[in-house]
C-alpha cells in the first residue's frame, strides 16, 4: 500500500513524470494480459507439483477441453444446459420487469408483493430445489423453475427501485409540459429506469447461471452438470475442469454480450 501513496486520490500527481514505456506497462490491457498470464502460469505450476492428484495442469485441462469439443459432447451439453436457462431467464425477465414496474407505479401492489421478494432476495432459495423436484419431477420444468427463483428476485427489486428512483425534477418537468400518465411512463420513467433495470438483468443472468448449474448437479445430471459430475466420478479431472471452465467463460461472455446489446440498442447517449 505504501508504494503508491495517494496515487488514486491524486490523479494529477500520478501523471506527471511517466515515461512512455511506463505508460505502456501500466496500460489496462497490458496489465490484464499480464494478470491472466500469471494466473495461468501459476495454475500450470500448481498442477505440476502436483498440488493434488485431483488438480490437473492448465495444459491438461486445455487438452481435456479440446477432446470435449472434438467429440461434440461439449456442444451437446451446452445445448441441453441452455434450454432451461433460456426459457427460465425469458420468463424471469418478462415477469420480473413487469412486476417491478407494476409495483413501482402502483403502491398497493408494492405493499402486497414487495415483502415476498425482499425476503427471497436475502434467503438461500437454492434450498427450495428439492421441493421443486418433488412438485415438478426431475424433468425440464423443475430446472426452469430453479432458474426462475434464482433470477427473479434481483430483477424485480432492481426494477422496482429503478422506477421508484426516477428523478423528481424529470417527473415535474414532464407534468409541467402536460405529459399524460402513459406518456410520462413511456417517455420518462422507463427510459430513466432502464440503466438500473439492465443492471438487475445482468445480476439476474448471473444468478440464473448459478441456478441452472445447481439444478443440473442436484436434480438430474444433464448437460454441463452431467459433464462435471460424470467426469468427477470417473476421476477424469482434466475434462471435469474443462467443463467448469467452459461454463464460467460462457456465462461471463453472455453477460458481457448483454451489456453490449444494452448499449447499442437502448443507450444512445453512451455511444456519443
Amino acid at each position, binding site marked *: 500500500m505504501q508504494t503508491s501513496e495517494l496515487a488514486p486520490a491524486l490523479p494529477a500527481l500520478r501523471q506527471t513524470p511517466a515515461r512512455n514505456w511506463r505508460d505502456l506497462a501500466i496500460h489496462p490491457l497490458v496489465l490484464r494480459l499480464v494478470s491472466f498470464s500469471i494466473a495461468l502460469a501459476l495454475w500450470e505450476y500448481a498442477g505440476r507439483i502436483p498440488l493434488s492428484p485431483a488438480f490437473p495442469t492448465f495444459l491438461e485441462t486445455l487438452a481435456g477441453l479440446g477432446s470435449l469439443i472434438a467429440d461434440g459432447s461439449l456442444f451437446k451439453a451446452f445445448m441441453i444446459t441452455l434450454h432451461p436457462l433460456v426459457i427460465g431467464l425469458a420468463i424471469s425477465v418478462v415477469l420480473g420487469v413487469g412486476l417491478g414496474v407494476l409495483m413501482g407505479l402502483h403502491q398497493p401492489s408494492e405493499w402486497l408483493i414487495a415483502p415476498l421478494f425482499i425476503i427471497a432476495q436475502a434467503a438461500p432459495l437454492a434450498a427450495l430445489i428439492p421441493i421443486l423436484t418433488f412438485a415438478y419431477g426431475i424433468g425440464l420444468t423443475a430446472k426452469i423453475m430453479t432458474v426462475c427463483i434464482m433470477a427473479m428476485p434481483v430483477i424485480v427489486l432492481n426494477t422496482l427501485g429503478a422506477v421508484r428512483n426516477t428523478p423528481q*425534477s*424529470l417527473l415535474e418537468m414532464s*407534468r409541467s409540459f*402536460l405529459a399524460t400518465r402513459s406518456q410520462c411512463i413511456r417517455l420518462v420513467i422507463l427510459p430513466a429506469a432502464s440503466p438500473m433495470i439492465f443492471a438487475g438483468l445482468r445480476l439476474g443472468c448471473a444468478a440464473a447461471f448459478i441456478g441452472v448449474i445447481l439444478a443440473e448437479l442436484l436434480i438430474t445430471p444433464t448437460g454441463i452438470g452431467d459433464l462435471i459430475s460424470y467426469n468427477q466420478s470417473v476421476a477424469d479431472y482434466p475434462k471435469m475442469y474443462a467443463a467448469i471452465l467452459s461454463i464460467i467463460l460462457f456465462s461471463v461472455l453472455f453477460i458481457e454480450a448483454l451489456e453490449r446489446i444494452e448499449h447499442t440498442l437502448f443507450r444512445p*447517449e453512451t455511444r*456519443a
Partner: protein
Amino acid sequence: MSLSPATAAPLRAIEPAPGATRPIVEVRSVSKTYPGGVEALSGISLDFPEGKLTTLLGPSGCGKTTLLKIIAGLIPHSGGQVLVDGREVTGPGPERAFVFQDFALMPWASVMRNVAFGLELRGVARSQREAVAERHIARVGLKGFEQKFPHELSGGMRQRVGLARALAVDAKVVLMDEPFSAVDEQTRRKFQEELLELVANEGKSFIFVTHSIEEAVYVSDRIALLSRRPSRVSAIIEPKIVRGGDPEKIRRDSAYLDVVEDIWQQLKHYLD
C-alpha cells in the same frame, strides 16, 4: 382546467400602478401548508403584469419556489386562488412553461429531442416539432449542438437547452426557478443580459425566482420581496432602471446600485 368566470371580484391587495398593463397572473390570498403542519405561504396576494419580468426574491427557504410551483400547477395550494390569463389554475397548462433549477434534461435524449419534448407530448409531428426546436436551439446560441447529449454540454449550455425547451412550446408565461444558480458567475452575467433581450423581444411574461439581490435588480421590471416562512409579500419594488443600450452600463448605474442597497437593508433583518 376549470374556467372561473367573472364571479371573482377584483380583490387585490396591491393595486397595480396606474397605466400598467393588466396582470397576466393573479395570485389571490394563496396559502400553502405542507402535510405535517409546516406553513410555507400565508395568504399571499400578488399581481404579475403582462410582458414584464417579475421576480420573487427572498431569504432561502422562504417559499418562493413553492409559490412558483403553485403558479405552475405542479403543487396544489391549500387556500386562495391563482388565475392565469383569467382562468383558475388547477394543474399545469399550455400557457405556462417551466425552466428548472437543475435543468431537468433527459440524459438519454439529444438536445434536439429535449427541446422538442413539450411538442412531442402534444403530438406535434416529428418534422414539424424538430423545425421549431431547431429555431429555438439557434435562438439560445446552441446551433450545431442539436445531436449532442446533455452530458457533453457544460452547465450553462444545459440551461440554454432548458430555456429553449420552455420557449419552444410558445407559452405566454415562462416560469424560471433559480435558473442560473447552477452556472458559474461569468456565464450567469451573460445569461442575465440575454434574458433582458428576451423579455424585450419575445412579448412573453416571465416570473423569475432568485435569492441574488443583484440578479433580481438587474433583470426585473418588478420585484416582490418575500418575508421568511410563513411567507408574505413584504414589499413590491419597481426598479426604474433605463434598459436598452449597453447592458454593461446598468451595473454601474446609480439607480441600480441604490435599489440593490435598499433591498439589502430590508432583507438584512431576516438574517440572524
